[in-house]
């Protein structure tokens, strides 16, 4: 335990030695540097460094941004369940959820800044907002929610052992944490709207009958489907990451009941989502799409995106994981739980992929070709930078902040059990 940074690590938590930690960090730093170089190329030389074009105006970045933001929904939804609905069990994952949310949102916003042609004009959206645009709603809500996440992250940082010694930090952390309910409420409100408007982004596209949906008032059905799917997959992603961190750090971080609770919430919402998505698809096939002069079957006759993609999205990666997570017998096995959670995450990613990439690949004019697009290495690199950044922020947070408040208690419990076993072994 020769860690030079031991005094910064939460008391009673075991973390790897400084050397091992640096070794773990190193490849991610390398990836981050490579990614920053890619992003720098895009910023300095322009978006000609990407493989996007006038027809494929959105590419890998928008697809992954949508996915990452859906997965990051765990932060707002866990906060909502814990602070507003008072499901106290989730206290043990809330800090981790906040860090994951922060990583997802800040990463997505960074990629968006590279994705626009004139990043320095980003403030125009705030200054001259077109309130009818879904993108305006997204921009406002995401930047506000990122602020909320930063404020929610602050108490986690300030609880660091060294920082907590400073009286003003200690007191501020204490006072801010008392008001966390306000932040959870505001975060829920904002998330509700931007998850929705990210879906609305595509649903309103009258000119893209593949994506166009009817809906309620100004909101197309995708608005509600995106909220539902993000809320469903958020807890799954928390489950998945927590499990992954447990495996990587070889520690028990939360009680199995928390896993099961997360899975039950996720499964329930996913089931509702699958049902709503199925209804929406039927309405779209039989009403919305023919109404715009586009027969729905033709979307699926352009290979490779056949009807299998619809089946995979709704049944394989939607219904199936929902059923697994709702079956108590299967839920009892961590293996099933984790597989189902991973499948649910894949399902949402597939949905975002279909909305972004398939929408743009399909022709709208009868003399349009069917288009394909492969991201350039600069695009992939830029995204890898976000992944590396996320892993780094999470690793540092895991090392220096107390992300899983029950970790120490669980270790003491394990020790008690060990003692009992020893005592039993000694007696007989």
């Amino acid at each position, binding site marked *: 335990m020769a860690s030079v940074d031991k005094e910064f690590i939460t*008391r*009673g938590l075991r973390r790897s030695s400084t050397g091992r930690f640096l070794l773990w960090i190193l490849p991610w730093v390398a990836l981050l540097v490579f990614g920053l170089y890619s992003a720098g190329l895009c910023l300095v030389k322009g978006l000609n460094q990407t493989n996007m074009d006038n027809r494929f105006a959105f590419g890998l970045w928008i697809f992954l941004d949508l996915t990452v933001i859906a997965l990051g929904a765990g932060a707002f939804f866990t906060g909502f369940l814990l602070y507003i609905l008072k499901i106290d069990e989730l206290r043990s994952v809330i800090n981790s959820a906040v860090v994951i949310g922060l990583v997802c949102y800040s990463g997505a916003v960074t990629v968006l800044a590279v994705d626009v042609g004139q990043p320095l004009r980003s403030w125009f959206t705030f200054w001259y*907002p077109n309130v009818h645009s879904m993108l305006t709603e997204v921009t*406002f809500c995401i930047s506000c929610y990122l*602020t909320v996440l930063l404020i929610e992250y602050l108490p986690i940082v300030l609880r660091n052992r060294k920082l907590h010694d400073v*009286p003003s930090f*200690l007191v501020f952390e*204490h006072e801010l944490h008392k008001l966390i309910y306000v932040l959870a409420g505001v975060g829920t409100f904002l998330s509700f709207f931007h998850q929705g408007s990210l879906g609305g982004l595509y649903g309103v596209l009258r000119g893209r009958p593949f994506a166009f949906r009817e809906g309620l008032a100004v909101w197309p059905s995708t608005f509600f489907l995106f909220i539902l799917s993000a809320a469903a997959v958020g807890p799954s992603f928390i489950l998945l990451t927590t499990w992954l961190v447990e495996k990587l750090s070889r520690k028990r971080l939360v009680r199995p009941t928390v896993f099961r609770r997360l899975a039950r919430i996720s499964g329930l919402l996913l089931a509702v989502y699958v049902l709503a998505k199925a209804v929406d698809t039927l309405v779209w096939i039989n009403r919305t799409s023919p109404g715009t002069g586009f027969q729905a079957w033709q979307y699926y006759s352009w290979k490779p995106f056949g009807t299998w993609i619809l089946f995979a999205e709704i049944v394989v990666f939607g219904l199936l994981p929902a059923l697994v997570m709702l079956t108590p017998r299967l839920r009892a096995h961590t293996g099933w739980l984790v597989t189902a959670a991973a499948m649910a995450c894949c399902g949402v990613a597939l949905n975002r992929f279909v909305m972004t990439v398939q929408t743009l690949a399909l022709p709208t004019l009868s003399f349009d070709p069917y288009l394909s697009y492969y991201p350039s290495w600069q695009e992939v690199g830029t995204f890898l930078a976000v992944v590396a950044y996320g892993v780094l922020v999470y690793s540092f947070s895991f090392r220096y902040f107390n992300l899983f408040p029950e970790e120490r208690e669980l*270790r*003491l419990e394990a020790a008690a059990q060990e003692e009992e076993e020893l005592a039993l072994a000694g007696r007989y």
Partner: protein
Amino acid sequence: MLPWIYGFNWNAGHIIFLGAFYMVLAALVATVASAAIRSRRALRMDQAEAIRWHSDFESMPACDQVCRHVLTGEFQSRQCPHAFDCRECETHAKLIQCHPLPRVEEPEEDVFGMAFPLDRFYHRGHTWARLEKDGTVLVGLDELGARLLGRPDALVLPKPGDRVHANGAAFHARRRDAEVRVVSPVDGEVVETGSAERGWYLRVKPTSNDAKTFRHLLRGAEIKPWIQREMERLQLALTAEGAAPALADGGVPVSDIAAAYPAADWDAVCGEMFLEG
């Protein structure tokens, strides 16, 4: 964005959208500002120590937050709602009225070979307070606390004239890798500092000197069950923190426990025993 900027319209869409945006901004600013203002007030009113104690208490496992009346067997289970400050606890007030503690005849309690004189009051963070004839209160480490820290490598004592708060830090000690804040059992002003050799660390002029001053501290018949429980906790902490040989049941702890378990994460063990999160 603002009424005089191009593109702004006084229509419902604009008003609702921007209204919601400004309300969110106002809520965020108000939250941070009120937290800042309240923390400034708390710092001015010298509440930092109390907040630190509450924070430490909250980060303790639920099984360690147990009420003193569970130690004596009066309750099956009860979690302390007052962060071990029985001065505000109505339940405690009622209980000591109805069931006064049984008298202990011996002048000191011997638990696992450790001496706990009964002429003083004990804090659950392993300090004691003894009211002197001159009205001052001596503060020291109890036997278990002393054995945990052994001879501290470093000691930071407050200066005479400094104030200490009950449940706040009395002084800081370092042993091996363990940095420990030792809690003060009473409120008051430090008049003199002692040392390990003198058997006490602080002489404090208490803020008040009535029946309530020591109400939150353990005494008499409570000591034995409390220390028995503390020994269980110590054994658990030692096992958890990687001390190779566990304390034998009923064995007598050595006089310098820190030296006896070189492999243990002493910082974590001390954090556990001195109730520091």
